[in-house]
C-alpha cells in the first residue's frame, strides 16, 4: 500500500471507530434516560412494571394533599378516570400545585405507592399538557377525558 492510501485508510478507520463509540455512547445514554409517561390506571394494570423510573401523569385528587408536621414530606393521590395512585414527595411543590391540578411526577414505584423526585404542574387549571391528554385518552378509549374539576370527585 502506498503511504497516501495507508494514511487515508487510518483516517477512515479512526473516523469509523470514533463514530461507533459516539453512537454507542449516545444510544446507551438515551436508553438510560428515557422516561415514559403513564397514568395511574396504566400503572395499576402493570404496564409500567418493566420501567424502573417513569413519569406518572394525572390529576391531584381533591383533598388528598397531606403535609407532614415536621418535614417537607407531602403525600397526595394522582387519579385518572379509573385509577388512583398515592404519591410521596419530599421537597417544595411547584407554585401551581393544588387540588384538581394536572401534574406530572417523575420517580419510581416503592411497593404500592409512587415516590416522586420531581413534580411539575401546568400553569393554567383548564389546560392539560397535550401528552398527558393523549396518554389519558389512550388509557380509556371509550370514555371522555376528565376535565379539570370532575377528575377527583367533588371535594
Amino acid at each position, binding site marked *: 500500500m502506498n503511504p497516501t492510501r495507508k494514511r487515508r485508510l487510518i483516517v477512515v478507520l479512526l473516523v469509523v471507530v470514533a463514530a461507533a463509540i*459516539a453512537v454507542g*455512547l*449516545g444510544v446507551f*445514554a*438515551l436508553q*438510560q*434516560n*428515557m*422516561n*415514559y*409517561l403513564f397514568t395511574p390506571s396504566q400503572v395499576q394494570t402493570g404496564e409500567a412494571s418493566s420501567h424502573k423510573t417513569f*413519569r406518572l401523569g394525572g390529576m391531584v385528587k381533591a383533598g388528598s394533599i397531606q*403535609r407532614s408536621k*415536621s*418535614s*417537607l414530606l407531602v403525600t397526595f393521590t394522582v387519579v385518572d378516570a379509573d385509577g388512583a395512585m398515592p404519591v410521596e414527595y*419530599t*421537597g*417544595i*411543590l411547584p*407554585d*401551581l400545585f393544588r387540588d384538581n391540578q394536572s401534574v406530572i411526577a*417523575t420517580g419510581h414505584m416503592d411497593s404500592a405507592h409512587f415516590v416522586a423526585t420531581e413534580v411539575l404542574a401546568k*400553569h393554567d387549571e383548564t389546560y392539560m*399538557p*397535550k*401528552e398527558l391528554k*393523549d*396518554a389519558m385518552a389512550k388509557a380509556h378509549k371509550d370514555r371522555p377525558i376528565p376535565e379539570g374539576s370532575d377528575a377527583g370527585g367533588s371535594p
Partner: protein
Amino acid sequence: MTPELGQIALILALLLAFAQSILPIVGAWKNNSAMMAVARPAAFGQGFFVVMAFVLLVWAFLHFDFSVQYVADNSNLALPWYYRITAVWGAHEGSMLLWIFILNVWTLALALFSRQLPEVFVARVLGVLGIISVGFLAFILFTSDPFGRLLPMPPDGGDLNPVLQDPGMTFHPPVIYMGYVGFSVAFAFSIAALLGGELEQAWVRWARPWTNIAWAFLTCGIVAGSWWAYAELGWGGWWFWDPVENASFMPWLVGTALIHAQAVTEKRGSLRAWTILLSIFAFSLSLLGTFLVRSGVLTSVHSFASDPRRGLFILCFLIFVVGGSLLLYALRAPKVAGGKPFAVVSRESAILVGNLMFTVAAAMVLLGTLFPLIGDALNLGKISVGPPYFGLLFPLLMLPIVLLLPFGPYLRWGKGDPQILKGVMLRALLAAVACAIVAAFFVDGKLKAIAGVGAAVWVTVGVLLYVTKRWREMPRGRRYPAEMAGMLFAHFGVAIFLIGVLLSESLSATSDVRMAPGETQHIGGYDFRFDGVRETQGPNWRADQGTVTVTRGGKPVAVMHPQKRTYTREQIQTESAIDAGVFRDLYVALGEPMDKQHIDGAWALRLYHKPFIRWLWLGGLFMMLGGFVSACDRRFRVRRLANADAPEPVGAVVLSETRA
C-alpha cells in the same frame, strides 16, 4: 386606526420583500443590472414599513389600546410602562414581529455596509434575505396577526405572563433573536456563493464579521437566558436542557464550528464545502429553534402559545429552506477539494477536530430534543429524555476541545511544529496539575471541582503563554490584531466558564427546609435566619414577602427578601432573593406556607449557597466580547472593489505568516 396602519405596513413590507427576493436574483442570473439595483431600495422600503409596524404595536401597548386583541391579552392598566414595551414580544404574534424586525435590522445593515462588494453578489445576498422575509411576513399576516381587533373593546386587559415580568426579559429575547436571525446573513452569503458558483473564497472574508457578530449576540442571549432562568424560575439552576434552551444552544454549537471553519476557508481555502454546509445548518437550526419554541410541539416552560396551524406553516417553510438549500448545495457545492494541503499536526486539523466535536454535540442535542417527537410518531409511547443524557454526553464531547485549546494559536497553518507544542504542553500541564493539587485542599477532594481548576488553568496558561510570546516577539502595534485578540478573549472565557460550571456544580450546598420564624439553618458556612413573612404590594401584584437574615460567624452578611407574588389574574410567581458576589451567591426562594392556619407561620424555604456561579456567565460574556472584537479586525473592512477581488490581500499574507 393605528392597528390598521400597522397591518397595511406589514402588507406593503411583504410586497417589497417579494420585489427584494425575486428581481435581484433573476437580475443576477440574467446579468441585468437594472433588476439587481432593485435590491437596496426594496430592502430600505421593506425595513421602513416593518419598523413602522413594530413601532405601531409598541404605541398600541403604551396607549392601552385594548381594542387590539394581542394588547388586551398581554397587558393591563396596572402594568408598568417598561413591561408594556417588553410585552410586545411577550407572546407569539409579537415575538414573530420582533423576528422580522430584527431580520430587517440585519438586512438594512448589510445594504448599508456592502457598497464595496460586487453588485452581483450583494444582489444575491439581499435576494436570499428577501426570501426569508417573505416567509416570515406571510407567516405573520396569515397565521399570527398582532394587529387583530377585539370588539367590543374590554375596559382592561389580561396580563403579561408573570414569568416574563423581570428585567432580564427586557433583554433576553431581542438579543437572542439578534443571534438567531444573524445567522441568516451567513446563510445568505453561502447561498449567494452557491448561486454564483464563486470559485474564489473572498466571499468568506466578507461573511466572517457578520457571522462573528451574530455568534456574539447569540452567546450574549444564551447567557442572559441562563441568568434569567436562574434568577426568575426559582429553582436556582442555570441550565435545564429544556427543549427551548436546546433550541438556542444548537445554533450556537454549529455557529461556533462555523466561525472557526470560516477562518480556515478564508485563510487557506480548505474546508470550503464544509463551511457552506455549516452555515446552512446554523440557520436551519435557528429556524428549527423558532419552530420548536413557537409551535408548542414540545412541552416546555417557554411554549406560551401553541397553534398547530402555525407549526405546520413553519414546518413547511423549514422544509423549503433546508431542503432547497441542501439541494442547491448538492448541485453546486465546490466539486474539487480546493485549498492548500495540511498535515496531521496543523491548525487546520485542530480546528477540524473541534468542528467535529461541535457538530456531533449539536446532533446529540438535536436527537435528545426531538426524541420525544420521534417516539410519538413511531408509537413508542410518551417519552421524555432526562437531563442526565445531555449531562453525560456533552462534557465527553467537549473534553477534546478543552484539551486542544491551548495549542490552537501555536499551531501553524499547514504544518505545525511538534517541538513548540511539547513545550506548551509541558508548561500548561505542570501549572494545571500544581493548581489542581493546591485546589484539592480547599474543596474537600471533590473530583469535579479539582478537574475544573485543572482545566481552567490548562486553558489559561495556554492563552497567557501565547500572549507573552506575541508581546516579546512582535513590534508594538502589531502584537494583537483584533481578530487574534478576540480569539484570545473567547478562549480565556472558556477557562472562566469551566471554573464557574465545575466549581458551582460540585461545591453548591442546597437545602429545602421547613422553617418557623426565628429558626436558623447552617449552609455552606452561612447562617440563614428566617424572620417570618409579611404582605406587600406592587403595581400589579401582591406578595407574601419573607425576610431572611444571613450571618457568617455572627457578622451580618445580607438581609434577603424572597417573595411569593400573586398577579392580577391569580397567577402565582416565585421571586427569589439573591445576594450576589464574585466568589459565591446566596439564593433564597419561598416555597409555600406549611400550615394553612398560620399558627406558627412556618414556610418551606429553598436555601442555596452557590460558589463561583457568576463565573459561568462571566465566561460567556468574555466569549461574546471575543466575537465582537474579532469582527472589528481591519482586515475585514472591505476595501475598494479592485482590492476586494484580489485572491488574498497583502495584509492577510503578512498576518498568517507572522502568526505562525
